[in-house]
C-alpha cells in the first residue's frame, strides 16, 4: 500500500509540481485512486511537499470529504440539511438504518453499506436527495428508497 501511495504522489508531483496549492489536489488524487486516504499518506505527502506530517494530517482530518478508511461497497450519502429535512429526510435515515444495518458514520456488519450525512447536494428542488457512490437520486420517498435498497441488496448477494 505504501508503495502505491508513494507512486501516486510521485507521479502527481512530476506532472503538477509540489507548490502548496497542490496539497488538496494531491489528496483528492489519492482518494479518487484508492477510495480513501491510507494512513501513511500524511508522511509521504509531507516529505514531497516539504511540510510537517502534522500539517498534512491536519488537512486530511479537517475536511469531511477525505476518508481515512476504506468505504463500504455502497456508500449512501444522505442529505440532512434544511431543505431535505422539510421533505422528511429524517425518516429516510431510519429506513436505511433498518434495511441495511448500517448506522450514521458506520459500516454495516457485512461492510456492504455505509451511511454518511451530507450537508446539501445542491438538489434542493428535488428534496429529499441522496447520493449512492457516484450517483444522485432526487425526490426520494420511502417507496423509492425501498426499491433502491432492495436492488442494491440483491446485487450484493449475487456478487
Amino acid at each position: 500500500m505504501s508503495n502505491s501511495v508513494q507512486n501516486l504522489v510521485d507521479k502527481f508531483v512530476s506532472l503538477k509540481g509540489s507548490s502548496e496549492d497542490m496539497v488538496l489536489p494531491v489528496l483528492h488524487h489519492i482518494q479518487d485512486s484508492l477510495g480513501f486516504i491510507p494512513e501513511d499518506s500524511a508522511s509521504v505527502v509531507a516529505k514531497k511537499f516539504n511540510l510537517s506530517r502534522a500539517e498534512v494530517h491536519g488537512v486530511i482530518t479537517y475536511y469531511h470529504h477525505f476518508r481515512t478508511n476504506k468505504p463500504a461497497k455502497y456508500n449512501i450519502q444522505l442529505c440532512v440539511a434544511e431543505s431535505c429535512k422539510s421533505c422528511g429526510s429524517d425518516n429516510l435515515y431510519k429506513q436505511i438504518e433498518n434495511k441495511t444495518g448500517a448506522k450514521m458514520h458506520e459500516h454495516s456488519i457485512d461492510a456492504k453499506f455505509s451511511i454518511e450525512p451530507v450537508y446539501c447536494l445542491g438538489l434542493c428542488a428535488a428534496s429529499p436527495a441522496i447520493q449512492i457512490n457516484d450517483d444522485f437520486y432526487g425526490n426520494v420517498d420511502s417507496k423509492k428508497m425501498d426499491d433502491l435498497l432492495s436492488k442494491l441488496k440483491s446485487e450484493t448477494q449475487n456478487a
Partner: protein
Amino acid sequence: MPNFKKFYISKDALSESLGSNKLAKKLESHRQDFEIIRTGSRGMFWLEPLLEIDTKIGRIGFGPITENDIDDIIELNEFEFKNHKNYLGVIDDIPFLSNQNRLTFKRVGLIDPLSIEQYCSYDGFEGLKKALEMDSSKIVSEVLDSGLRGRGGAAFPAGIKWKTVNEANEEKKYVVCNADEGDSGTFADRMTMEGDPFSLIEGMTIAGLASGATMGYIYIRSEYPHAIDTMEKAIVLANKERYLGESILGTKMNFQLEVRKAAGSYVCGEETAMLESLEGKRGIVRAKPPIPALNGLFGKPTVVNNVLTFTSVPLILAKGASFFKNYGIGRSTGTLPFQLAGNIKHGGIYEKAFGVTLRELVFDIGGGTKSGLPVKAIQVGGPLGSYIPEDKWDIPIDYEKYIEFGGVVGHGGVVVHDTNANLAELAKYAMEFCAVESCGKCTPCRIGSTRGVEVINRIQKKENVDENVVLLKDLCDVMEKGSLCAMGGMTPFPVNSALKYYPEDFGVTSDDKALTN
C-alpha cells in the same frame, strides 16, 4: 413517421437524479439520425425529466416523463402532441419561465453548455470584447456604476472590491471565484457552472482585466462533480479558442484559469477560509483586516466573488451599467436567481429583479407546499438565514429591507417548511450544524454551538424553561457579537427567529417574560 429530429434533454445533476440520462439513452437507441442536445436545466424541476423537441412553433416540451414514454412521444405528429398527458406546449411560454427576468440565466437550459458557438449566438463574449477595448479603471467604474453587489450573501459592492485590487501596487494579483455553494436550498451556482460555464469564464476574465490579475481559481465544492467536470472542459475549450489564456483574442492580455476542488467544509464558503484552503491548509477563518482585496491569496491582492457576481459582469459590460441598474429597487440593483426549494410544489430557479415578495415567490410562482399542508415557515438565505413568518411575506425582497427586520437575502435560497416542521428542532439543528462545521478558531462559535444544542435540549425537556430561554438568548448574543465570521455570527439568526416567531414549538408562550426581556 413524424419528422422531428432535434431533441433537447438536460444533463444538469438534478435532472440526472430524476432520470434524464435514461431518457437520452432510450432516445439514442431509436434512430441514428436523431440529434440529441444535452443542455443545462430550464430550472423547472417539477417538470423534470423534461424532453424538448424542436418544432416550427418553437421548442415544445413533455414532462415529467420517463424513458417508457419515449416510444409513444416520438410517434406523435404536431397535431397529436396536445393529446399526450405530459404535453407542456411551447416551453418559453410557460408562465414560470416567461415571467422571469433572466439576465444571468438567459442561456441556461437553452444551449449545449460546452458549445462556444452556441454561447456566442446568445451574446456570449460580447462583454469581454468590450472590456478588451477599455482601460482597466473604466471597467471598474462600469461595474461600480451598475451597483452590482456580491451575490454570495454578504452583498458587498463588487466595484469597490475591484477598485481596491486595481489600485493595489503589486505585481502579482489573483481572481478567485467562490463556488463553494454550501447553503442548503441553493443551487444557482451549480446550475450556472453546469449549464453556462463560459459565462463564468468570461466574467472572471473581465475581472482579471479590471484588476490586473493574470491568474484565477474557481473553488468548487466536492459535492458538485458535474460542475467541476463541465468547468474544466470549458476552460480547455476557451483556452483553445483564445478567449482565455495567453494573448486573449489577439490582444496583449493574459489570464489563466484553474479549477480547484474543495473538500466538504461549509466554512470554506467564507472567503478567508477558502483562501486558506486554496493555499493547501485547513480552512480556518482569518481575522480581517487585512482584507483579501489587499492581502488575499498567498498574501497578494485578490478579487474574491461568487459565481453569480461574476456572471452578472459580462452583461454589464455589454449592455452598460444603466441597463443592469434598471432592474431592482433601491440599492439592490439587478436580478437574483431565487432558488425555490424544500417543501414546495414548483421548485426550481426563478430569476427576478429585486423587489419581488416572498408570498409571490412561494405561492403565486411556487404553488405552495409539495405536501399540500399550509406553509409554516420560510427560511431565506441558507442555513444562517432567519425563519420568516407569514406577516413578513409581503415585504419586497431587497438587502436593506431584509436587514431591517432581521432577515437575510443571502444567496437567494428559499426553503419552505410546512406545518409538520418543529422550529425548536430546526433551531437545534442550526446549532448542531454550526458545531459540525465550525473551523474552531474562535470560542463563541466552537463552544457556543455545542452549548446551544444542550440548552435547546433542556428547553425541549421542559427543564427550567424560562431560565434556559434567557440563557439561549444570551448565548446567541455572544455568538453574534463575538464570532470571527458569519458561521458563528449568524447561526443565531435561525435560532432567534425560531424562538421569536414560533415560541410554542419551544413550549413557551409568546407573552412569556423570558422571551420579551
